[in-house]
């Protein structure tokens, strides 16, 4: 069997009310959306449980290892928005640029930091978009105004940026 290298399987952006704002799958055709939706829901309790002890940093590191392949990493911004990255340890065939040590020793929390930072920059960019109204995506206002339809992020640029981050990430990268 050819050696495989870690790759991002899923990126989830979750709002303050634990509402899904955006979910990207990598590669989109080979992942079951429902399965990852369940996985993202399952990690919300971990955020909740760690909140009291975790004061210093926004980086929550490894949330849980789902099985031999999938591992979930989390990040919580100061305004309560959660970023979750699911890594598939055998997500893509290893290339010559992948160092042997990463494949052998597994991932460190620090490997995910650049990806989270890039996601946060993308989200800040989204908030600076005058046509993005955060309230519109909160289930509270959607229910109050009895609005039908999705409360997910529709900004094309943000979605493309998330896609770019998910596809470009590899262990050991310093910036995205």
């Amino acid at each position: 069997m050819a050696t495989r290298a870690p790759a991002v399987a899923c990126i989830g952006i979750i709002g303050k009310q634990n509402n899904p704002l955006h979910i990207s799958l990598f590669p989109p055709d080979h992942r079951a959306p429902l399965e990852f939706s369940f996985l993202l829901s399952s990690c919300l309790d971990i955020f909740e449980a760690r909140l009291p002890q975790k004061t210093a940093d926004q980086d929550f590191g490894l949330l849980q290892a789902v099985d031999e392949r999938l591992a979930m990493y989390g990040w919580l911004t100061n305004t309560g928005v959660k970023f979750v990255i699911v890594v598939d340890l055998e997500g893509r065939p290893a290339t010559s640029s992948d160092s042997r040590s990463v494949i052998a020793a597994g991932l460190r929390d620090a490997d995910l930091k650049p990806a989270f930072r890039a996601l946060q920059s993308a989200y800040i960019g989204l908030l600076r978009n005058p046509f993005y109204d955060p309230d519109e995506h909160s289930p509270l206002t959607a229910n109050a105004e009895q609005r039908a339809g999705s409360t997910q992020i529709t900004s094309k640029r943000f979605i493309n940026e998330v896609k770019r981050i998910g596809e470009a990430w590899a262990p050991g990268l310093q910036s995205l």
Partner: protein
Amino acid sequence: MATQQPELSSSSTTTTDPFVSISCLDFLLIELVPMAYRIAAELSAREEDWTRPIGALNTTTTTTGTSSRAQDTTSTTGGGGGGGGGDGGTAGSVAIVDDEETREAVFYRLEMLGYRVGLGITERFSRDKPRSTDALDTIKFLCKDIWLLVFRKQIDNLKTNHRGIYVLTDNAFKPLTRMSAERGQGDSMLARAQPVR
């Protein structure tokens, strides 16, 4: 657009190199409240346009008099007045009746604007800060970081009764420095603004 966002790199907090002139902020603040009033008035007028035709019809049908033609014209001008500006009399009476309601709508609108701005600023400038766990942390962020960003100085004094009330004192609050006061009244006003000890 990506090339237009060099300031997003967290290294340049740009407290010393602002992108917006202080005058712009002054003019924006001057215009903000009247704009909120205009929008609130316009929205309530539009809402009235939606609800009034039924009422207007009712009055014309009940007052079946000889001067039905004259009645018709007055009722139509009254009904369409909201959208097209209307005459001074009706607009004035509407403004008095809805005064409290309009004020509430204006306050709500301004509060939502502030919330939206605050959310964006906090997300942008607290990215490297530790997460605040209690109210005091949040207040400190407001006093030190936000004030430094917006006014280039920190809050001069912070008092609290440790039961959820915080009194922030700024001895030279920038938006008020350009404001004129009645001669001789400035000092007494300042004294009245002090928190009660």
